């Protein structure tokens, strides 16, 4: 017995995948959505951080530029002022005037950009103080120069106030610049760190995302493959089943053909046998008659008696042969089941028995009978036998009374059979028989009476039983001596037939 292909070599894993309830899939989807949301937020935040970093760095660079600008402006102013002092040429004052124009603005800007760092702020305060003073110093010198008070101007220069201020300013600027550079470096390092971190984070996030997708795809694929495998296994099983069914149908058809052939041969044999057996019997009887008629004197009483007995024996043999032929024909001449209205069958049987019914003055009451799947001519034989018996075995001196009742839509007496059944009862008020013979009456050629009492070969009831059993039903008898007899027929109302067989049989008959 081969293993079902569905179970063969399947690991527990794959069963689990197949059996994953839909809630798991929903959870997986929720996880994926959550993950991607978090990922997006993370990305946004990363960009934000980078932007902040960049702003910071820009700020620092700007501050450094401001510092340099301030330095340059002041240097330019100083050298311009000195040049003017030396040459008294107002042309030399251009840079100085330019510086004055921009210095306040520069200071403000520088002040704003250093406001965050406390050290820088302090330095800036000092710076501003010194720058103010320096400008004042320069302004004094320029004014003096303007008034051509050169000596006073030179004296002012010689105080080195200017230079000291400048030195202080320079110092501050250098400090400020280096501080800003430190900050710059720090920011750059931070930026590099951030960038590293962000790249890692993004890579990791995408890797996780990719893995998730791959994972989902993988499970989906395995599921799909499994399903595909199941489908192909199913298709294979179906194909196999169809093939088997085909083979069985073939075998069945073949068997049915053989059966039909066998029946035909049997029928031929039975017919020929009965025919060929009857022929010599006829001669025996005929010549027996002649013997009696022409030679009664020579035979004498005893001789005639012998001849009579011989005749009777031949007659019985002839009847027996006919009955055997009928009996075999239940099988060989069977017709497929069709819907038969039993009332029609009963009417035709009553017609046939018309003479006998009239003769005996019998009363026959028939209930309405159902329509069932049956072989009509065989049912006619059954009815004929049962009614004929009732007419034959009537109580002497009494008219036969026969009643046929019917019940339909009965539950099947067989297990596992869904068909409805019907029950026909043939009851008479005749001589009846002992209960112990209730089964024996159905035996072939069994008689309960001597030849002299009642005619008949004893085949009638055996024939009935054979026919009823062919229809899948049962026939039983109940009786008591002097109380008549009841014959109960239980029959299924429908017969299953196999289509191809039915057509085959229909073609053959």
């Amino acid at each position: 017995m081969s293993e079902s292909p569905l179970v063969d070599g399947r690991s527990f894993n794959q069963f689990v995948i197949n059996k994953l309830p839909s809630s798991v899939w929903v959870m997986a989807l929720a996880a994926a959505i959550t993950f991607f949301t978090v990922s997006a937020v993370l990305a946004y935040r990363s960009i934000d951080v980078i932007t902040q970093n960049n702003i910071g760095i820009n700020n620092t660079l700007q501050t450094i530029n401001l510092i340099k600008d301030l330095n340059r402006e002041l240097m330019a102013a100083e050298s311009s002022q000195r040049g003017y002092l030396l040459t008294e040429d107002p042309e030399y004052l251009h840079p100085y005037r330019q510086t004055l124009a921009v210095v306040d603005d520069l200071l403000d800007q520088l002040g704003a950009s250093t406001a965050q760092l406390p050290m820088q702020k302090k330095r800036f305060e000092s710076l501003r103080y010194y720058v103010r003073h320096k400008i004042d110093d320069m302004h004094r010198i320029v004014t003096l120069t303007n008034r051509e008070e050169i000596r006073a101007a030179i004296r002012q220069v010689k105080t080195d106030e200017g230079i000291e201020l400048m030195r202080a300013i320079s110092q501050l600027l250098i400090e400020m610049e280096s501080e800003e550079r430190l900050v710059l470096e720090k920011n750059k390092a931070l930026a590099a760190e951030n960038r590293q971190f962000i790249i890692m984070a993004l890579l990791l996030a995408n890797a996780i995302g990719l893995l998730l997708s791959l994972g989902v795809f993988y499970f989906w694929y395995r599921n799909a493959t499994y399903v595909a495998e199941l489908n192909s296994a199913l298709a294979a099983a179906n194909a196999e089943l169809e093939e088997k069914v085909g083979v069985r149908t073939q075998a069945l058809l073949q068997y049915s053909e053989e059966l039909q052939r066998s029946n035909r041969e049997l029928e031929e044999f039975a017919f020929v046998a009965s025919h060929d057996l009857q022929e010599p019997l006829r001669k025996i009887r005929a010549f027996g008659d002649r013997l009696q008629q022409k030679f009664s004197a020579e035979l004498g009483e005893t001789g005639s008696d012998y001849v009579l007995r011989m005749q009777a024996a031949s007659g019985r043999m002839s009847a027996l042969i006919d009955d055997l032929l009928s009996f075999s024909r239940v099988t060989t001449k069977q017709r497929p089941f069709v819907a038969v209205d039993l009332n029609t069958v009963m009417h035709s049987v009553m017609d046939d028995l018309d003479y006998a019914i009239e003769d005996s003055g019998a009363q026959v009451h028939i209930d309405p009978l159902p329509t069932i799947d049956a072989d009509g001519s065989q049912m006619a034989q059954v009815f004929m036998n049962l009614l004929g018996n009732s007419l034959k075995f009537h109580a002497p001196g009494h008219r036969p009374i026969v009643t046929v009742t019917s019940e339909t839509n009965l539950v099947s007496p067989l297990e596992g059979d869904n068909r409805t059944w019907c029950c026909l009862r043939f009851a008479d008020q005749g001589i009846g028989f002992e209960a112990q013979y209730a089964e024996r009456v159905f035996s072939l050629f069994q008689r309960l009476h001597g030849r002299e009492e009642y005619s008949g070969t004893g085949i009638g009831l055996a024939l009935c039983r054979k026919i009823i059993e062919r229809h899948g039903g049962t026939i039983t008898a109940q009786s008591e001596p002097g109380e008549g007899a009841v014959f109960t027929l239980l029959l299924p109302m429908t017969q299953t037939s196999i289509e191809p067989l039915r057509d085959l049989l229909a073609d053959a008959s």
Partner: protein
Amino acid sequence: MSIPKKTLIILMADDDADDRLLAQEAMHESRVLNELYFVEDGVQLLRYLRGDGEFSDRQAYPMPGLILLDLNMPKMDGREALAHIKADPRLRRIPVVILTTSKAEEDMVKGYDLGAASYITKPVTFDALVDLMRTLGKYWVEFVELP
């Protein structure tokens, strides 16, 4: 009292000697004045009817006014012989009554198809056979006009 017409010549074809004997006896018993002649198979039947060979002597073997035909005979069976008779313009007017043991419906149908006048199953008892002979005799002689 009816005046009997001239005797009817009946020719019976049957391969069974017993049946021929019984027919003879039955005819005798029936007191019908008919003459009964016999042949044993289809071949002989046709030769008789055509007057071939020994049958050319019409004194000994007169043409029948009625043929009783058994179906199952050797050499040529009744069905074939019947076909020949009905095909022959000289013979086909002779009424043919099939008298056979066969009860088969197809034989009966075929018989009538081939042109038999009647199909009769051989009676089982001798008395019935006598009855038949009497009836045949009366019917075919007293009632039926034959050409």
